[in-house]
């Protein structure tokens, strides 16, 4: 029982209720200008970080890796170009210009060199690159030979695992060639103590003569990294002072002086104002993204940890709600100056320059009282002004949420750029508790990326997205006795025989084969996770980020070495709905009705449904119930697919097991970003009627176009899945035409729909509010639709930055138009 009997509703929202705000992105001209300036910039590749880390690593040969990494961070922060944008109030840049992506050669460099001439010619996620930059990057490639994370991973990968990769069952995304990311710092701690306070804690531990060498190295690295971070802020203080001296505009001059003052004293102790708090939170984020190149560095419960600073300023008369909104909007826009470049084949798995920096508002506090406050609303409104992909804004809601939180969330959703996404506490909290977390901790969850959830400040790296498993491919292998049709590779069989001949005499035999194959490939994926994690233990020696998470300082360990308080991971499972739909066809047509034989079905799949007879079979297959229509026959089979994987998980541990953190087990996630598109390209025709190469289903959503009974039926189907065991996140994406939310009456109905999802026990919900005509036009005339933001999967992106097949997939999603 998670609903306490006391008055659970928030009492902190009266002040902001008086503040009139019309959604629609207008007003606040300075915010608009900063936003426009940023939108005008094309992303580029910046070589500075790569050169500076190379320079540092040349000098630190032989030292402990964690020390080398900290010294490199110091060299980068002390020598990289810095600048302050016109009118911006939050400072700190990641590269030599806004939206430029730094390079992280310590993780992988070969692909960068291979793709140097292609970055500016990509079909999506384009990066400008100069000849000078290309030269500089080519110049450092030889230094990194044999030293990178990627090389270490592939030197240790087993042959079977490589074969499974060739079979396209396993995809090692970022984890094999970049840092891990997926961290929500303990913002309460940093805001209260500053980097200096944490540094002092590290020093105290360092002074203990009994510590191990490994701990000593870690504490020294933390001290170096935090000193570097403080000095980085001082550089901005100097710059702001210089700019203030030259500034002619009186107002801006004052602002620059204020920025200088904040950055001069920042991090020496407790944050002194709301403005400073935002700057602190931004520095944590920025420096983590310079230290390592993961993604999904997230902001956690912004309205909780910033609230004391907001409230104090408000009560002292130093801040108005208007100013708080403007500052928050600047803070949000600033996040969009950051960028990450990935190899092209990874880019396809997550298109639209995503960083997945989640920021969460609303929801139950750890004491069981609702936490909604003025800042919850200010964040929603700031997002309306920001209208860019970061932060990935989410609202938590539950029985104790004020209706106004859902109302403002819905108004923002109606604006049509896919935010916020919604998380239902009554499902997520039990899901977290299913991992064995204490209830108070579980109540404090926040999203870390898309839909994966973690406990802010207390969780090691990576809630999800370790090795990707293509469920569609596993089913294809089951139907072919383990032989992968393209590569011809067979690692396992149904009947113990080589070759693809196989016969099933009952549905149960098919199901048993699925379970056998799933276990075989999950074992391999876990092995892959371990190999990547062992390498990351060295290469992700992130003293800075680790120092911001509970227990790292106490234990003297980086997160990858077992520093976190909690540590659970999940892989990413792609195609759960399509497997259920396909199994329903096999069960019904081959076994229940005996309308066709298994061999007839398989030859139709071999022919990709071509030919008159095969088309008839396809038609029969399409008529079998599909997931997303509230039909128990198939919905239960989809639930079986989830359970088949969930039941395997207690047998697996991650690399930190026994090294300190609570847990170190596995959970399940359908947060698979846009991977359902490229994963589908690898899978032949499937029994549900899908053609070879077409996308698999997105997250937990129904297959493309299969949900023909409207959004209520989709919600009902999803509610039959084991959502309260999905601690890694359960993604449901719905696209609504704008008319469905037009006017207050329809908005209220929409809110009721969201509420019903909570009562149904669904985990997560997000919406695209666009019509397909607009999307088609945006594909043809991108120049007219630069602003058009859509939900891709667990994140939002500008539609025009997406590659055409992903654009098509979004257009094809059934439009849930009401009458």
């Amino acid at each position: 029982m998670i609903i306490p009997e006391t008055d659970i509703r928030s009492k902190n929202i009266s002040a902001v209720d008086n503040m009139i705000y019309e959604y629609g992105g207008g007003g606040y001209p300075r915010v608009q200008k900063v936003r426009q300036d940023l939108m005008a910039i094309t992303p580029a590749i910046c070589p500075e970080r790569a050169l500076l880390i190379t320079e540092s690593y040349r000098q630190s040969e032989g030292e402990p890796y964690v020390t080398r990494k900290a010294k490199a961070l110091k060299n980068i922060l002390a020598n990289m170009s810095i600048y302050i944008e016109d009118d911006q109030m939050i400072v700190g840049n990641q590269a030599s210009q806004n939206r430029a992506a730094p390079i992280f050669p310590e993780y992988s460099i070969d692909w960068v060199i291979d793709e140097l001439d292609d970055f500016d010619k990509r079909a999506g996620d384009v990066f400008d690159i100069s000849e000078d930059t290309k030269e500089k990057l080519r110049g450092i490639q030889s230094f990194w030979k044999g030293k990178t994370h990627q090389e270490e991973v592939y030197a240790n990968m087993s042959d079977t695992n490589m074969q499974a990769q060739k079979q396209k069952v396993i995809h090692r995304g970022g984890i094999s060639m970049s840092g891990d990311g997926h961290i929500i710092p303990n913002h309460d701690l940093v805001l209260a103590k500053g980097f200096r306070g944490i540094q002092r804690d590290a020093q105290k531990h360092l002074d203990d003569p009994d510590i191990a060498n490994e701990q000593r190295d870690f504490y020294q690295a933390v001290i170096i990294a935090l000193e570097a971070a403080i000095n980085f802020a001082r550089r901005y203080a100097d710059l702001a002072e210089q700019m203030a001296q030259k500034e002619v505009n009186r107002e801006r001059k004052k602002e620059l002086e204020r920025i200088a003052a904040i950055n001069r004293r920042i991090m020496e102790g407790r944050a002194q104002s709301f403005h400073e708090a935002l700057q602190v939170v931004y520095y944590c984020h920025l420096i983590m993204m310079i230290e390592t190149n993961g993604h999904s560095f997230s902001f956690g419960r912004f309205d909780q940890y910033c609230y004391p600073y907001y409230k104090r300023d408000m009560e002292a008369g130093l801040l108005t709600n208007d100013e708080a909104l403007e500052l928050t909007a600047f803070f949000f826009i600033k996040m969009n100056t950051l960028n990450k470049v990935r190899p092209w084949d990874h880019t396809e798995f997550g298109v639209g320059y995503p960083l997945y920096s989640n920021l969460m508002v609303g929801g139950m506090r750890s004491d069981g009282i609702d936490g909604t406050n003025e800042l919850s609303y200010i964040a929603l409104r700031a997002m309306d002004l920001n209208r860019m992909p970061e932060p990935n804004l989410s609202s938590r809601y539950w029985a104790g949420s004020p209706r106004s939180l859902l109302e403002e969330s819905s108004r923002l959703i109606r604006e049509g750029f896919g935010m916020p996404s919604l998380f239902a506490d009554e499902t997520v909290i039990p899901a977290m508790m299913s991992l064995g977390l204490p209830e108070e901790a579980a109540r404090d969850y926040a999203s870390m990326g898309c839909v994966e959830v973690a406990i802010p400040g207390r969780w090691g790296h990576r809630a999800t997205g370790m090795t990707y498993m293509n469920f569609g491919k596993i089913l294809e292998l089951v139907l072919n006795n383990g032989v992968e049709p393209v590569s011809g590779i067979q690692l396992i069989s149904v009947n113990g025989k080589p070759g693809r001949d196989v016969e099933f005499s009952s549905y149960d035999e098919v199901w048993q084969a699925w379970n056998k194959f799933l276990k075989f490939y999950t074992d391999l994926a876990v092995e892959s996770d371990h190999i990547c994690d062992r390498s990351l233990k060295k290469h992700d020696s992130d003293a800075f980020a680790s120092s911001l998470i509970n227990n790292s300082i106490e234990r003297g360990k980086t997160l990858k070495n077992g520093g976190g308080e909690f540590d659970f991971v999940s892989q990413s499972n792609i195609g759960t709905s399509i497997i259920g739909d396909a199994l329903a066809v096999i069960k019904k047509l081959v076994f229940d009705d005996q309308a066709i034989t298994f061999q007839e079905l398989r030859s139709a799949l071999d022919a990709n449904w071509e030919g008159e007879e095969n088309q008839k079979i396809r038609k029969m297959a399409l008529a079998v119930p599909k997931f997303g229509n509230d039909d128990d026959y198939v919905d239960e089979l989809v639930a079986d697919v989830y359970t088949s994987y969930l039941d395997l998980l207690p047998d697996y541990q991650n690399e930190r097991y026994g090294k300190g953190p609570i847990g170190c087990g596995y959970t399940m996630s359908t947060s698979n970003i846009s991977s359902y598109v490229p994963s589908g390209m690898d899978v032949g025709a499937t029994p549900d009627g899908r053609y070879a190469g077409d996308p698999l289903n997105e997250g937990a959503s129904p297959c493309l176009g299969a949900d023909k009974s409207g959004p209520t039926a989709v919600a009902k189907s999803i509610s039959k899945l084991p959502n309260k065991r999905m601690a890694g996140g359960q993604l449901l994406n719905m696209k609504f035409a704008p008319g469905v939310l037009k006017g207050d009456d329809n908005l209220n109905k929409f809110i009721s729909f969201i509420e019903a999802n909570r009562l149904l026990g669904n985990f997560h919900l997000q919406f695209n509010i666009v019509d397909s005509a607009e999307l088609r036009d945006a594909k043809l005339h991108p120049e007219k639709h630069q602003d058009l933001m859509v939900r891709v999967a667990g994140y939002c992106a500008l539609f025009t930055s997406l590659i055409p097949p992903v654009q098509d997939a979004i257009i094809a999603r059934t439009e849930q138009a009401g009458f």
Partner: protein
Amino acid sequence: MPLYNPDIGLISRIQKYSTNDGPGIRNTVFFKGCPLRCQWCSNPELIRAKPDLLFTPSKCISCGLCIDVCTHGALSFDEGDTIIVDREECAACGECVDVCPEGAFELVGVEISVGDLTAELLKDEVFYQTSGGGVTFSGGEPLYQAGFVRQVAEGLKKAGIHTALDTAGDVSWCRFEEVLDVIDLVLYDIKVADRDLHQQLTGRDNDLILANAKMVSMKGIPMHIRMVIVPGINDSMDELSARMMLISELESVKQIDLLPYHRYGVGKYAQLGLDYQLEDLAEYSEEKIETIRSHIASYGIPVIVGG
């Protein structure tokens, strides 16, 4: 009036997340069969009290498979390679639907039992609860199948679900009596006030419709009047004022749903092999709708555009 079995309904489909047919989130059930022949009808596939075959020529690849399977001789090629449907012969048996590789045929009208329909409608109970919604019986004319509607509505009422009846009212009063005690809200079409004009535009006069409307109102059942307006056809100020005078006398009316003419249904006429009488009629401008809305609103009953 065809004989029918009150345990089996003939419907075209159920629209879920229906937001414009009464309060809250609703499921709307569309029944087949209607006594009226309104020129502007946007659901012509619901007129006949029998299944109908829809044919979409643009999807047809002229393979002729449908001609081979049709046991009624209703399908043939014209002089070229275009399929012709002989509506006189077609029994809407669905053989051609099953065989067509391109999905050029579609059957409208499925028989469903009281139990199956009720179970289907109960699936969305949680959405009715959170939104104050429920189920709307629409059509066509649902009261053509009043005995069936009654049984389904009774089951819903037992589950505490709000029920709405969307009717054009051109049926004998006993049909209303069969259902009204299990109906919470009546959405009532009053299409034209002038008796002759009504006859001319819908094929029937409005005597029964107006009499039944009064009876519903006298029983005190809440009503929403659905006022369709068609440019230049039934939207003269005289006509609108006359309609409003009639409506004002109905005391149980809580709201007027103003339904401006639209052309979404035009394509269905071709699919059914029917002629569309208002071929060249343009939809309203937003300004014109606002003019009419404000005129109607001056009678003091709340008006919703789109309903």
